[in-house]
């Protein structure tokens, strides 16, 4: 009998997975390069959510590449209620005051810090093609999206000094507890 009520009068959880980014190759042999505070995403990535209120409890990142040399890298994930038009891939972040009004939260992924032991933030997966690694982090991001069709608008900012990222995709999974 109790099980009928879980997730109905109480809270439940759901999982949202999306493609956060596809790091490119500028030209053969040259990977896309980012320096500190540069925007990594093309504009803001729109992530529809199944509900308006809740808490993001955990994030998981997976990175896949067909070439060896995936790099552990530090970045900040900005989450907004509205579209962020100031975000230009490869340009230094320049959020406006109005855009900041819709800020939901930011999450820092710090290579060598988020997971002990240091420098082991990203865990390598199986050593086959495509190469893959992943990172998980518990977070606590309460959110309220003031829209009937709630969407998170996510911008990724590079927070290390400089990095070159080969042709690879990075996926993000959010584990969300619904109010």
């Amino acid at each position: 009998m109790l099980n009928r009520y879980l997730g109905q009068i109480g809270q439940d959880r759901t999982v949202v997975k999306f493609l956060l980014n596809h790091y490119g190759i500028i030209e053969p042999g040259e990977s896309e390069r980012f320096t500190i505070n540069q925007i990594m995403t093309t504009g803001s990535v729109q992530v529809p959510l199944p509900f308006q209120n809740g808490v993001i409890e955990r994030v998981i990142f997976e990175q896949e590449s067909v070439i060896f040399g995936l790099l552990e890298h530090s970045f900040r994930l900005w989450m907004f209620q509205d579209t962020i038009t100031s975000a230009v891939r490869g340009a230094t972040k320049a959020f406006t005051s109005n855009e900041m009004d819709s800020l939901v939260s930011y999450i820092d992924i710090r290579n060598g810090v988020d997971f002990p032991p240091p420098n082991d933030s990203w865990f390598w997966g199986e050593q086959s093609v495509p190469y893959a690694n992943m990172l998980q982090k518990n977070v606590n991001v309460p959110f309220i999206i003031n829209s009937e069709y709630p969407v998170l608008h996510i911008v990724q900012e590079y927070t290390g000094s400089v990095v070159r990222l080969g042709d690879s995709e990075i996926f993000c999974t959010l584990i969300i507890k619904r109010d």
Partner: protein
Amino acid sequence: MEFYTGKTGQDRVLRAFDFGTLDTAAYAANDILTSGAISIDAARFLGFSGVVERIILKETTSGTLQAPAIRLWFFGSAITPAARNSPQAFTSSQFDILVGYADITAADWITGGTGVAIAQITPNLIYNCQATSKTLYMVPELKAAGETFASGATIKGQIVLRRD
């Protein structure tokens, strides 16, 4: 079944607030930042309780960002703090209704672009309004000396409350 949320359990609300006009004269450490306390609709019924889960501050300016260290005092009923740009001087009776405080350090501030910065904290501050109040009253106190805000500079914010 969503209509049960907040009736049989807790709910979560987002409130916006504004520190109002900031003094352009230099503040000293421990000065009150605003003119009066800032009221925040925080409880569903008189005397109810909840948790301050998240606070986001946003500073905007056409001058130099101050990114100030701030102590946010919360009271469970209305109080009248010291005047803006005057030393904090809470009375014994005011402290009787103190809910708690949350600190924002200078290091919490992150520049978002030219003339805009944000600070985000997760205080998880449990509160209980006074029996005659559904409102929290927030008083910001500067913790660092020499902060000088440009004319037109603002500090606004959002607060996420989980209400019982």
